[in-house]
Structures are given as structure tokens and as C-alpha cells.
């Protein structure tokens, strides 16, 4: 065993296998041991990681003449050595069978919904019409933050949320509502650092007001089941639910850059 591990081919195979287990199982199981949430890695990402690792291994074995010659030697022997005929013939059968099997698997009809290349950051327009009035998105601030009691706005937002949003976005604002599992893509989690925490309130307002039907044509189809809430809620109700979302999750809304007049600079 030791002599195989000293050989570049053996080392290359070992590194690849270890990388596979680390990526496929390590990412799922090791972080929870340290108290971090994790989940299985999607196949598409696993494949791209393994290709990268594979390329890295090939670079390592070939960046030195002696190692490259040593690495190729066993393969060369299998291909030309008369004593390796059985192994060679077996490979001649096995490799095409494996390729055929992989091909069959990739074209086999499946009941799963197809995986799609999606973008989930719709671009908000420069201006939009809200219940008949044109609003400029750049510089649009939440008016409730400068008037009335924040506690009242929070309570009002909470009411609006529990009457309208909780079914999908969940009691914990984590996208795990009762109906969430019926949707693909799943409703967003507001607890996530990458949703409302990266947006200015004006964009959140536009997103809630216009819902799925108001998403821009670019990047379509969006597959968003969210209603256009401007048909059901008042302007103040939407602003108050935004206050509730940020307060409840502990997130801070992004602010407009002073010079830029826009807040999506990342």
C-alpha cells in the first residue's frame, strides 16, 4: 500500500478521493460539529469543485518532468505491455460500459423538475408606478422612520405580516412557512444575511408592491408566486411591514450612497 502512495499516480488518486469525500460529506457533516448550519452540496457545485481539484492535480503531476514521466508510466504499461493484456481488455470493455451508463443516466426520463440556471436578484427600475403615483426609487426613504412611533409602526407591520406573509415566509421569517414547501423556488428567508440586509428599503418596497407579476422582463421567467401587494395593502402598511422585517431579524437596511444616489454597489 505504502509504495502506491509514494507513486504520483497513487497520490493523485488519493488526493482526488479525499477531496471528493471532504466536499461531498465534509461540507454537509463537519460544520454542524462546530455549531454551523450546513446542508448537502448540490451536484452541480460538487461537479465544478471536483473538476477544479482534478485540474489542480493534473497540474501538480505534470509541472515536473520526472514526476510526469512517473505518473504516466503505469498507464503507458497498461496500454502497451504484453503482460497487461487481461487488464487492458477489461478496460476496453469497462470504460465504454461506464460511459454508456453515464450517458444513459443523463438522458433517462426523470420525474424531478429540471434544474435551471436562475438569477434571483431582479433589478429594480429607476421609477415605478405605485397605485397610480410615480415614485422615483433612487433616494426613496421609508417615511415612517421620521414620523410617529416606531413601536406602533412595528406593531402595525407585525399585524400586516401575520395576516399576509407568514404563510410563506414563516413564523421565524426564515422562509419556512406552511406553504413554503409547495413552492419552487422557495420563499426567501429574511434571516439570511443576503436578502433584505443587502437592500435599501426602497427596493424592498418595490419588491413587495409589485410582487411576482411586476418583476422585470430581463431574467424572466421568474417563477415568483408572490402577489403584487399594492393591490391589497396601503403604502403605509407596506412601509410598516418593512420596519417589522428589519426589526424582527435584527438586520439594518442598506442606505443610499451619498454621492451615488443608489445603494446596490455590491
Amino acid at each position, binding site marked *: 500500500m505504502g509504495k502506491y502512495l509514494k507513486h504520483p499516480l497513487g497520490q493523485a488518486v488519493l488526493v482526488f478521493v479525499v477531496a471528493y469525500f471532504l466536499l461531498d460529506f465534509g461540507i454537509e457533516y463537519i460544520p454542524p460539529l462546530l455549531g454551523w448550519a450546513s446542508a448537502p452540496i448540490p451536484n452541480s*457545485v460538487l461537479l465544478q469543485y471536483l473538476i477544479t481539484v482534478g485540474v489542480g492535480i493534473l497540474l501538480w503531476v505534470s509541472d515536473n518532468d520526472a514526476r510526469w514521466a512517473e505518473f504516466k508510466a503505469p498507464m503507458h504499461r497498461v496500454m502497451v505491455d504484453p503482460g497487461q493484456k487481461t487488464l487492458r481488455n477489461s478496460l476496453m470493455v469497462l470504460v465504454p460500459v461506464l460511459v454508456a451508463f453515464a450517458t444513459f443516466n443523463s438522458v433517462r426520463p426523470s420525474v424531478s423538475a429540471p434544474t435551471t440556471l436562475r438569477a434571483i436578484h431582479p433589478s429594480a427600475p429607476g421609477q415605478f408606478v405605485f397605485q397610480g403615483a410615480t415614485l422615483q426609487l433612487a433616494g426613496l426613504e421609508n417615511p415612517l422612520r421620521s414620523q410617529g412611533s416606531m413601536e406602533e409602526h412595528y406593531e402595525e407591520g407585525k399585524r400586516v405580516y401575520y395576516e399576509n406573509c407568514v404563510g410563506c415566509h414563516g413564523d421565524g421569517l*426564515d422562509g419556512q412557512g406552511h406553504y413554503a414547501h409547495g413552492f419552487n*423556488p422557495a420563499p426567501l428567508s429574511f434571516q439570511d444575511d443576503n436578502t433584505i440586509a443587502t437592500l435599501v428599503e426602497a427596493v424592498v418596497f418595490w419588491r413587495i408592491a409589485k410582487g411576482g407579476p411586476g418583476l422585470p422582463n430581463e431574467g424572466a421567467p421568474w417563477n415568483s408566486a408572490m402577489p403584487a401587494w399594492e393591490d391589497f395593502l396601503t403604502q403605509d402598511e407596506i412601509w410598516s411591514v418593512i420596519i417589522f422585517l428589519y426589526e424582527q431579524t435584527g438586520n439594518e437596511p442598506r442606505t443610499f450612497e451619498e454621492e451615488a444616489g443608489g445603494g446596490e454597489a455590491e
Partner: protein
Amino acid sequence: MRLSLKLVGVMSLSALALHLFPEVAGAQEIAGRIYGDFPFIGGRVAVWGAAQIHLLFAAFVLGVPMFAVVAEAVGMFGGDQKYDKLAKEFTRLLLVAYSATAIWGAILSFLLITIFPNLWVYLAEIFEVSMWIYVGLFFFESFTLYLYYYGWDRWSQGRAKLGHLGLGLLLNVFGTAVMLIANSWLTYMMSPPAEVTSDTPASMIDAWGAFANATWMPINIHRAIANLVFGGAIVGAYAAYRFLMAKTDEERAHYDWMGYIGNLVAIGWLIVLPFAGYYLGRELYEYSPQMGNTLMGGFMSWLWIIQAYLIGVLFLAGNYYLWVGMGRIPGAERFAPYTKYMLVVLVIGVIVWATPHTMIANREEVDAMGGVYHPFLGVLGVMSAKNTAVNIMILTTFLSFLIYGRANKEWTVPWAKTGTWVQAALFVVAAAIVMFYGIYGYFVSAIERVDFSVYQVVAVLGAIFGVGIIHLFMLRGAKSRGAIRWGQMPPRSQYALFILAVTFTWLMGLMGFARSGIRQHWHVWEVIQDTSEWAATPALGFAAIVISACVLIFFVLVAFIFWLGGLAEKPIVSNVGTGASD
């Protein structure tokens, strides 16, 4: 007589109307042909392909003179003739490439005029003066190039040589001016001044305001650097082709050295290119958050994953070439054991950089993740992680260059050991700053986080500058452990140079599509709408096919130029095998 008076009246009113509403008159003149067409592939793809191939040749003919003139100056002031010969061979490649650029430029112009006549008239009305200056500069640039190349041997001594170098500089001045003008036209289409609306007649638009629009200078800087990178990569590919076709050891040695220089220029300038790209991105966001978001977070965002991979390939191929090249440097074996650690850093860097924020996942996988973001890997999908990865990759690549440069050196300066420790400390401090801001970025608001990337960049550039200066001083009086055995390079290393050239070309096509595609259904952003049948932004898969076809056509033509280069005259082989030590 009454009829004549009536006629005069009608003509006068018509003249008044034309004076008051010139744009209406213009629209009537070209009514009936708002858009043309092109057989089989359609008008848009025809213009797209012509523009892309023109740009690729243009990038080459703008980039190569920059380092040709530097190489000539090094040869002239350093006294090493091999640099002069190298510069001349670079310039020889330019001649045919220059014609190809002009031909594709003409094809692009005629296609634009016939397929998008309204847009052409509109742009011509705003930019007519700059268009005239453009052709004038083009004329001067052409003849300067001819003088520069054909006068090489005639003006090779004394003050005449200085004049010849001046011609090289002039060539760059004309070339850069041509690029600046062309950039103004295309950037105007992306970012017209705020006061220009769909109701503004072209004749009323301030020409300078349109010229120096919001994204003009960022594009100028980005393209100037990218041209150098691209020129280096194509020269590297040319050298690789010549190396593989070489019949003698002298030829192999010469083209091995030329390939090294090409790679040095390409990867060296690639290191600073992300910073220029970042500046362009920021300016785009400032101009239009909507456009910026479409580019970085919207439907164009997948291109950035492809970009991450392609740039990953560039970093890996560039470093690989250096590591393989260390096999022909006496003394390099001291450093060979460390390359595997650098490779691990680069592979991890590519993995982090290319981790998508929104993953391609099926229904079951999305359910298992509890949403569209992976709860653990999601942290790698944001800019904090990606900026950190790319900066660490840049530092690693610079380290590769450094150990390559000191591989056969034996220091004689008394402070060499201290110098090495200071260099190591600079690397460590820069890496620590990059990592610190990368991690800290997760704990602050997005608006604060944006500035962190600037601190990371400054740390990396500072380290590169500091380490480089120390290296130069340490080189003083350094002994050689033996000359580099130019030409003794395994053929597989040359394929790394081909990969570099193809990847750069593909990358330019893809990101050029992203830059242009974010206008979506606008010819001129929010001013002139595209009402043609090709108004919808093409799907990424379709775009990838068109771009790949352009890359293929470009390389078929480049291969022809390479072949032609060998056909016209014998290669200019300089004796780099003896006496060359770096």
C-alpha cells in the same frame, strides 16, 4: 404666377418646418428602413460578430506596440540587442494584424450603416467631428506603423535610433487616441448624460458631454490594460507556435524566451486588471444602480461565474508555465517543493471565486438546503469571499514570479537575508489584511463593506511594489548559479501559452457581451429603444455560441497571420541561449 407664389409659400413653410424640427426631417429621410437584415444569421449577430472580431484585432494592435516600444527602449538603453530584435518581431506581427483590424472595422461600419441606419445617423450627428478626427488619426497611425517597421534597420544607430523610438511612442499616442475616441461612442450608448432623454434631438446634445460620459474613462483604463494583457497572450501563443515548429536549438531558445516575455506581460498586467474592472463596475453602479444590478446580481450574474473560472484558468496556466519553466533554471530546484502549496492556494482560490451564490439545484437539493442559498457555502457566494480569493491568488502569482526571478541568483548584498525576511513579512501582512477585511466584511453593513475591497487592493499592490523594489536592489551584483537553458522547455508548457491566449480571447468576448448586453432593449440606454426583432437580450447559451464562433474565426485568422509571418521572411532569431541569465 399665382402657382409660383403658392409654391414659394409651401417651400418657405417647409423650410421653416425643417429648421424648427430637423430631427423629423431626418426621420422622414430614412423612413422605411429603420432596420436592415442579414442573411442566415440575422442583423444583430452579423454586427455583433463583426464588432467582436474587430475589437479582438484592435486590442492586439493597440497592446503590442506598447510593449514593443518598451522592449526597443530596453534594448537601446540596456545595450542588449536581443530586446531590439524581439521588439521588431512583435512589430512584424502587427503589420498583417493591422490590416485585419482595418478590414473588420470597415465590415463593422458597413454592417452598422445597412442594418442599423437610424442609430448610425443618430450617433453620426452627435459624434461627427470625433469620427473625422478618428479617420485622420487612423491614417497617421498606419503610416507611423509602416515607418516604424520598415525604418527599423535604416534608423538603427545613434540619434536616428532615438528618432525611431520616437516613432514607436508616436504610434502608441495615435493608437491610444483612436481607442479613446471609439470608446466614447460605445460608452455613450451605455451611459448617455443624464440630461439626454428620448425627446432630446441629436443636434442639441453637447458633443463633449456625450464624449466624456460616465463610463468613458473607466472603460479607457480597463481596455488599455486589457490590451496589454491580450497582446502579451497572443505574442505568447505566437512564440509557442514557433517553438513547437522550430527546427534548431537556436530557434527553440529564441521562441522559448519570447514566450516567457509574452507570459510575463500578460500575467503581469492581468494582476492589475481586476482593479480596473472594479473601478468600472463602481462607476456603472453610480451611473445606474439598475444597470449595475443587472450586471452583477441579475441575469448577467452567471457570466461572472464563468468569468471566475476563465480567470482561474489564466492564473493556473500562467503559474504552471512558470513552474514548468523552473525546470530549465539552475538553482530552481530549491523552490520546487513550495509550488504545490501555491497550487493548493490557487485551487482553493478558484473554488471560492467560482462558488455561485444561487446554486444550480433541483427541487430536492433546494429543499435540503432550506432555500436557494446553501447555509454553509452561501458565505462564499458574496463579494467579501470573492475579493479575498482573488487578492490571495494575485499575491500567490506574484510570489511565483518572484521565485522564478530569484531561482538562479545568489545574492551578494550583505543585507540579503534581512531583505528576504522583509519581503516575506510584506507578503504575510498583505495576506493578513486581505483575510481580515474579507472576514470582517461579514460583520458590517453592505455600504461599509464596499470600501473594504479598496483596502485589500491597496494592501496587495503595496506588497507587490515593496517586494519588487527590494528584489531589484537585491539583484545588484547578484551571482548567477548558471544561465537559463532557454529552449529546454517541455512542449506541454507551450500549450499553457495557447490556453492563455484562447482563454483571454473568450473572456473578452464574454465580458464584452455582458457590458453591451446590460443595455438590454436599448440602443442608447433609456434614450433610443431597440424596436427591431432582435431587441430581446439573447440567452446566455446563445451568446456563448456566438462568442465562441467569434473566437474560432479570430484564431483561424490569427493562425493564418502566424503562418504568413513565417512565410514572408525567416524568423529573427537572437542568440538568447548564451549569456542570457534572466
